[in-house]
């Protein structure tokens, strides 16, 4: 059991899956010889050859469109979109094709496909290297949407996504690639080396999609988070000294409603945190579900702490990023009444 960064864990998931199943093929922009701009596929071309891991032209549409054809043939493509901000050129193939193929053909054709992409800000990437478009994927029937928050989960969930018989959108919080980040951008950078979730088996393993994980037990208020926001939530909880229960959703669709509901029914208070813009973000769906399933347990309104309804700015990045201070204030508000 060695420590891995999230990058190494993702690379290892590819490696184990390609080792086990030669139907698994990996491609995307710069993923072949170079191993990806974030190095998540480094060494795979050398090990598995140019026809199982290769560079693609700069066409997200072509990447996803050809991958759907490969999946229909019987391969298990796992493709990379360099940044989630660049997935939109492929949106039609994802929404109209990958998501609907099994249903519209009554299972005659299926689409076991993984589309990986880095999400989130905190690297001064501005509006075109920082977006978190998870909500729009969860609105599309036929897609599964996953966002791990640590190396251990990343490897296990990616392996499961590759084995899944249906298309999976696999979102990687780029700010977590090299260490847990809690929003304190001035603090020294933390590393996965000294974090439990940085311990990752070399060998293959898979974690079930659709299961949330309680990261911190608490009684006063429930925080629903995923990706980078899990650590922001932890920071906010410990810094306010509020006994918050933190649920890391891990998979947004299918959603682990049970875990969410039982936590909110216990605490009676809920704060939802995500980095994406507020309006029609995934927090809206969570709030709608919770008020439906926990209505008579809720002591106070559910709050959403999210990115603002603006493009992700460059210089004002830390004013946009929902950090521990904002989450902390929300926790306090949650306890006021």
């Amino acid at each position, binding site marked *: 059991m060695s420590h891995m960064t999230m990058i190494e864990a993702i690379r290892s998931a590819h490696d184990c899956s390609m080792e086990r199943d030669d139907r698994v093929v990996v491609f995307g922009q710069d993923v072949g010889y170079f191993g990806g701009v974030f190095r998540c596929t480094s060494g795979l071309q050398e090990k598995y050859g140019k026809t199982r891991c290769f560079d693609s*032209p700069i*066409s997200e549409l072509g990447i996803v469109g050809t991958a*759907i054809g*490969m999946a229909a043939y019987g391969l298990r493509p796992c493709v990379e979109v360099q940044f989630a901000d660049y997935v939109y050129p492929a949106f*039609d193939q994802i929404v*109209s094709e990958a998501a609907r193929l099994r249903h519209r053909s009554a299972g*005659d054709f299926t689409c076991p496909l993984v589309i990986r992409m880095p999400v989130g800000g905190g690297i001064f990437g501005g509006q075109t290297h920082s977006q978190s478009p998870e909500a729009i994927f969860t609105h599309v029937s*036929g897609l599964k949407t996953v966002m791990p928050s640590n190396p251990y989960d990343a490897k296990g969930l990616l392996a499961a996504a590759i084995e899944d018989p249906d298309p999976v959108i696999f979102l990687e919080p780029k700010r977590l690639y090299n260490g847990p980040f809690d929003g304190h951008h001035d603090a020294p950078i933390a590393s996965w080396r000294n974090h439990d979730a940085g311990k990752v088996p070399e060998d293959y393993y898979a974690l079930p999609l659709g299961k949330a994980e309680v990261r911190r037990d608490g009684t006063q208020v429930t925080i629903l988070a995923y990706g980078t926001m899990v650590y922001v939530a932890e920071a906010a909880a410990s810094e306010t000294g509020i006994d918050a229960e933190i649920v890391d959703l891990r998979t947004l669709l299918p*959603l682990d*409603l049970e875990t969410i509901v039982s936590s909110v029914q216990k605490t009676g208070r809920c704060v939802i945190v995500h980095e994406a813009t507020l309006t029609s973000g995934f927090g809206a769906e969570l709030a709608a579900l919770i008020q439906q399933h926990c209505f008579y347990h809720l002591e106070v309104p559910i709050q959403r702490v999210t990115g603002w309804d603006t493009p992700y700015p460059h210089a004002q990045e830390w004013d946009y990023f929902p950090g521990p201070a904002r989450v902390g204030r929300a926790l306090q508000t949650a306890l006021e009444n």
Partner: protein
Amino acid sequence: MPKKSGLSLHVPSPGVRPGDAPDFSEVEIPKAGEAGRPEVDVEPEAMRDLAFSVIRVLSKDGDAVGPWASSLGDDELIDGLRNMMTVRSFDNRMVLAQRQGKTSFYMKSAGEEAVACAFQQALRKGDMNFPTYRQVGLLISQQYPLIKLMNQIYSNEQDPIHGRQMPIMYSAKDYGFFSISGNLTTQFSQAVGWAMASAISNDKKIAVGWVGDGATAENDFHAAMVFASTYRAPVVLNIVNNQWAISTFQGIAKGGAATFASRGHGFGIPSLRVDGNDFLAVHSVATWACERARRNLGPTLIEYVTYRAGGHSTSDDPGAYRPKEEGDAWPLGDPILRLKTHLIKQGVWSEQRHLEAEQEIEAQVVNAQKASEEIGTLISGSPPSARDMFEGVFEEMPAHLIRQRQEAGY
């Protein structure tokens, strides 16, 4: 002409509109047999001219002439003729059924039956078509049960896709027929991906992509060309240029290009242009392109010059945007008539046999229709269950869909 001095926008339009006399004088039709037939491993550059010509085999008086003269035997040609006749008879019955309210919608292949029917005869079991909605000939040429097509069109209880999609959105994997999408051109890059997968797997199967003239403007056309060119995918990319895209004439999609076929040159893809109403020419060019793909020589782009003789769909009235008589004026004639004439000239067919064939086929179609309608139509019989609507969104139904299904009362 600009109103003031200065630039002005050029907006192409067809020479003629309803009320005008049809005019195809701009459509250049070389004589049958003129176009050369290169080796399949020739450099694209060396066969450039074939993207600007029209490869034709059937002469005016019905002889098969020139280097592309088909290798098909008489029986295969007779099969081809019967397949085309079946498509036409099937189409007409289904349009009628739609008018009678038995289904919601239908689209015919009228006038372009040769393209799909002749191409299919060049394919092998295991190859995969990625068709549009105008290639039912691919299935009918394989004796796919007409009743199954009708069950889909009627969305009845035995619809292979459970009433989930509009009429004619067939899916038939065992017949090398990919699930049709209502979103134009998406199948084009998928075909390339399927072909790449076959090559990655060192398989022998090839893929065939289909697209209409209008739909070549879509993003996936470019993606397909780029990926096919870069990875030399074993795929045949077919453009069916039937002159119209709903109310829009082909000039809007083609712009200043000489031909659609010539789009292949910028990708180093061998490109050919063929008389789409000439069964022999289509089959011969298809065979050439499929051999290229099978020999791992890479993709081929083919433009079929044909004419959409009917409306775009049962929702469309072409009389609103093109001369009623345009179809009759189409210089490449009718694919069924032309093959019939050839076979009669060959002495292997006759008016008499043609008439009999027509009656047989008509009977076949009518019987299939009766049987299918006994199962049900959109307005009769028991429709596919609403419960089924929730199935197959995922292989395994997740909790939220089970909840919704129960809320729906199933």
